[in-house]
């Protein structure tokens, strides 16, 4: 029983690596359907952007509130802009946006591919002489890779705006000073480290969600099971890879 489970995990892992290499192979051999990529960018990006903007604004505002209370105790309330900007750019925006993205766009990708698989549409693609990975997976993967970094930047902007609202209207920090402090606080390396992590998260989310969807079994029940598994796995991989990547980035760039 245990041996079978372990073998199954290795089998899935091997299959997922082959699946990823097939997808990357399509991309590097130029077999990319850009029209479908743009359609996916729109579908993945627009719907998620609204949620990301709203939650990021609220997160920035909460950070501002908590930071203001804490920093006031040390007589450093003017540093609230630093706290908000650095927290968002280095950690919160990349990780939270990835969570939201995998819960929305990732789940959508897994469910779409899963339902296509259980309804024989992926098989039909093969019978029509078309590579289903090229037609159905690659556009979703590329769109994911392009959309998530954009959403993270959007999250940072709205988060900072949320912090600004509290800092200026509640804490009484002058608006120009808040903006000046924010710009001073964020060094290129801070933005860069968050951005690099986002690119990795995008690859992991696209890979996991497309793989789980593509190999969904078990009818409509299976679609639900594999989709939730895709999202759960994405969360776990984002959290673990965030720790590893943060350590690497801090080691090399401080």
């Amino acid at each position, binding site marked *: 029983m245990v041996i079978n489970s372990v073998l199954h995990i290795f089998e899935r892992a091997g299959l997922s690596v082959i699946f990823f290499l097939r997808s990357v192979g399509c991309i590097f051999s130029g077999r990319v359907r850009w029209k479908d990529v743009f359609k996916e960018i729109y579908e993945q990006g627009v719907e998620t952007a609204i949620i990301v903007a709203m939650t990021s604004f609220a997160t920035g505002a909460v950070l501002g509130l908590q930071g203001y209370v804490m920093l006031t105790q040390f007589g450093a309330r003017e540093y609230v802009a630093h706290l908000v900007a650095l927290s968002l750019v280095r950690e919160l925006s990349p990780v939270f946006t990835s969570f939201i993205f995998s819960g929305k766009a990732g789940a959508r990708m897994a469910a779409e591919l899963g339902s296509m698989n259980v309804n*024989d549409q992926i*098989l*039909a693609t*093969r*019978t*029509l*002489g078309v590579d289903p990975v090229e037609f159905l997976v690659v556009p979703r993967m590329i769109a994911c890779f392009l959309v998530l970094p954009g959403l993270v930047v959007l999250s940072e902007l709205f988060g900072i705006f949320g912090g600004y609202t509290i800092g200026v209207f509640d804490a009484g920090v002058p608006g120009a000073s808040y903006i000046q402090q924010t710009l001073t606080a964020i060094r290129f390396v801070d933005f860069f480290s968050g951005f690099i992590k986002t690119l990795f998260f995008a690859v992991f989310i696209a890979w996991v969600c497309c793989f789980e969807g593509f190999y969904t079994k078990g009818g409509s029940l299976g679609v639900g099971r594999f989709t939730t598994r895709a999202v759960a796995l994405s969360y776990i991989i984002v959290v673990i890879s965030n720790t590893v990547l943060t350590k690497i980035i801090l080691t090399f760039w401080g």
Partner: protein
Amino acid sequence: MIRVEGLVKSFAKQRVLDEVDLQVKDGEILVILGESGSGKSVLLRHLIGLEVPDQGKVFIKDVDITVLPESKLLKVRRDIGYLFQDGALYDFMSVEENVAFPLLEHTKISEKEAYQKVHELLEMVGLSSAKTKLPSELSGGMRKRAALARAVVLGSKIVLCDEPTSGLDPIKSREISDLIKEVSRRFKSTMVITSHDMMNAFRIADRLVLLKNGKIRIEGSPRDLKESKDSFLQEFLTDQYS
């Protein structure tokens, strides 16, 4: 055109196809009959390389497709139309987009010409009024018609149909069967159809084979089968007509 030699396939130690030999001539309509689970669909899927046999060979136009890699199989499949049991139309495309898809993928004709051809074909299968509808807005029979149009839009000389009448009422089953016959006549296609619908099978088939436990039990023209005294065939016929 199609030749199957000693085909063996097992799933989880259960032998689904057991040394099956079969030949389908050019332009022939062959119906594979059998009970549910008798291996009809598995046999059909071997004919387009969707299954890899444990033993045996499948020749399409004298090319053994069982040894071809997926990249080469994709090219072979462009010459074969495949009608899935539930149509397997893309649910994010309209009917006309579904039918146009193979044309736009594999030919160099303009989009305008492709859609002109698609509209002619949709008229033939009686779906002109539903061309902009999504598959989810169609009835079962309409979905099968659209899927049949997609299967033959490239003018494939081989068309494989998996249970084309399943889930349809007797009138719709008859209509789909007649349509398949008409398509075969018009495109001069070789058709291999799996079915357990004896009545329509006898109406459209040039030749029939009856599968039992993964083996061909009996083979012949509709007349041969009607005159056969085979006990399993008799039982199968009796169950169908009762």
